[in-house]
Structures are given as structure tokens and as C-alpha cells.
């Protein structure tokens, strides 16, 4: 009994054969175009994967759909609009510039601007607060000598 079980387990890998994804269209040019477009689209099931790389059932269906729409002669933009009409802007990896995506698109630049402004103001303030050192000519010479020494070493 035990031996039989062991034998059966040893045979398990025979059935564990993984087939290639049967996803290729007969037309390689079309397939390439489909993959190119699918890379710009998000799979809604595994949300951080593109439609091109996802193995979810829905992604396969959507790739089939995209392929068929391409065969019908629709342009990439038309296909994207087709999918957005069904799944929303979320399917696009690059969200369109709209009133409610302004913050997303321009927020980082606004932050950079504010930070830059803050930095400039801070530097100006510091220049005002650090007093110009009043040195006697001798002290000046000594300082210059020390600095030169530093440079030579």
C-alpha cells in the first residue's frame, strides 16, 4: 500500500505539465500590436499587473477582446476608449489629465515649487542673520595662510 502511494506520488510530476499560454494569434504583427497596447492597460483582477502580463481569466478575455477589436480595424485609441467606457479610467496605467487628476499630475511640481521657495527664503534669512566678520588685516592674512596650508596638504 505504502509503496503504491510512493509510486503514485513519484508519478505526480507527469501530470503537472504546464502548458504554454495559448494566447498567440495567428498573426504575429497583430499580436505584437495587441501586447504593446495591453502593456498600457491595467488588469482589474490583479491590479498591479498590466493586461499583457496578467494570467487572470479576465485578462485573457480582455486580450481576446482587444485582438478582435483590432481585427475589426479599430485604432488603439478607439480600443482604449472602448475599455474605459466599460471599466473606467482605472484600466489606463497613465491616467488622463482631468479636473480631478490635476493634483496627481501637477501636485509633485507644486510641492517642488513650494519647497524651493522655502529653501530660497531660508537661505536669504540666514544671510541676514550671519554677520559679516570684521577682520583686521593681520587676521585676514593668517586666515588666508591657514586656508592655503589646507589646500596644499
Amino acid at each position: 500500500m505504502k509503496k503504491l502511494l510512493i509510486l503514485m506520488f513519484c508519478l505526480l510530476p507527469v501530470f503537472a505539465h504546464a502548458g504554454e499560454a495559448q494566447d498567440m494569434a495567428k498573426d504575429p504583427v497583430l499580436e505584437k500590436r495587441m501586447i504593446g497596447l495591453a502593456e498600457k492597460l491595467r488588469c482589474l483582477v490583479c491590479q498591479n499587473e498590466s493586461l499583457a502580463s496578467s494570467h487572470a481569466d479576465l485578462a485573457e478575455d480582455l486580450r481576446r477582446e482587444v485582438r478582435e477589436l483590432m481585427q475589426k480595424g479599430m485604432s488603439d485609441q478607439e480600443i482604449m476608449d472602448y475599455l474605459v467606457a466599460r471599466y473606467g479610467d482605472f484600466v489606463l496605467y497613465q491616467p488622463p489629465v482631468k479636473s480631478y487628476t490635476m493634483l496627481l499630475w501637477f501636485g509633485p511640481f507644486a510641492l517642488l515649487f513650494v519647497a524651493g521657495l522655502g529653501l530660497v527664503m531660508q537661505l536669504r534669512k540666514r544671510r541676514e542673520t550671519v554677520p559679516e566678520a570684521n577682520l583686521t588685516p593681520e587676521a585676514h592674512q593668517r586666515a588666508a595662510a591657514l586656508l592655503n596650508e589646507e589646500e596644499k596638504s
Partner: protein
Amino acid sequence: MSRFLLPLVIFIVLAGFLFVGLGLNPREVPSPLIDKPAPAFALPQLHNEQKNFSPADMKGQVWLLNVWASWCVSCREEHPVLMELAQRNIVPIYGLDYKDKPEDGKMWLARGGDPYVLSVMDREGRIGIDYGVYGVPETYVIDKQGVIRYKHIGPVTQLSLIEKILPLVAELQKK
């Protein structure tokens, strides 16, 4: 003192954003189909394959379209809720058996009970794509003019019925 005020404010704002983000469900993607006419289809009925059902048949009625499948685990969770809702006779529930084998679908309904007036078969998931289905179960509230008014993603719960779906149905039925 004021040295610490600004970082503190920034921290609180950031923490606020993150806290709100914690409560959001990333699976709930807002549907662009809300307030749009329900996409047309004519699909064979699960229990009577010779006959088709089409959303146009439902003009003048408020109804629910529930996307389900025998392979869908969360559907098991919502099934008792739908059964109870069907018994209360408030709103007709129609099923879209999504990417399923008819035998499996029928068996599933025979075992757990059938809350649907009827179910249609979307074997290849094409109608699912038209409705923007990405995770079964999903439930659509469709009004008398055939316009989608609400989409519920994930299993319908008693809470979602009481809070959202039933009040909306009652309001739409009055119109």
C-alpha cells in the same frame, strides 16, 4: 516651538491621508456605467436554452442583475442574502451566470436554492465585459427606463441591502 509646528502639521496631514486610505477598498473601482443605459444583450436562459432574455424585456420595472457563477466562492456568501431577498418579493432578481458550464450552474442552484426569476448564460464572459465585470459577484440596480443606477461589487450583505440597495430600489419604484 514653531520649528516643530510645521513638521507636526505635515505629519498630521500625511497621517490623515494614510488613515483614510486604510479604509478604502482598492477592489472597488467606480463604474463608468452608472447612470448609463444597461448594455443590451440577448442571451439564452439557463433553464430554458431555447428562450432568450434581454434587458429590454424589463422596461417599466426596477430590477437587479446579479452576476454569479458556480465556481465563485464569494457567491456562496451572498447566496442566503439573495434567497431571503427573493422571498420578500420586493424586487425581481435576474442572474447572469458568468463563464460557467450550464450543468454546473444548474447544479449549484439546485443545491443552494434559486433566488432568480431566471438566469442567463454568459459562457464566454463577453456580456460581462460590456458590463465592466471584473470580480464576481457583482450586482446592478437597473431602473424602469433600463438605466444602471448602482453597482455593488462583491457579495451583497444584509448591511448593503439595508443601507443602499433597498432604499434606492424603493425610490426608483416610486418614480
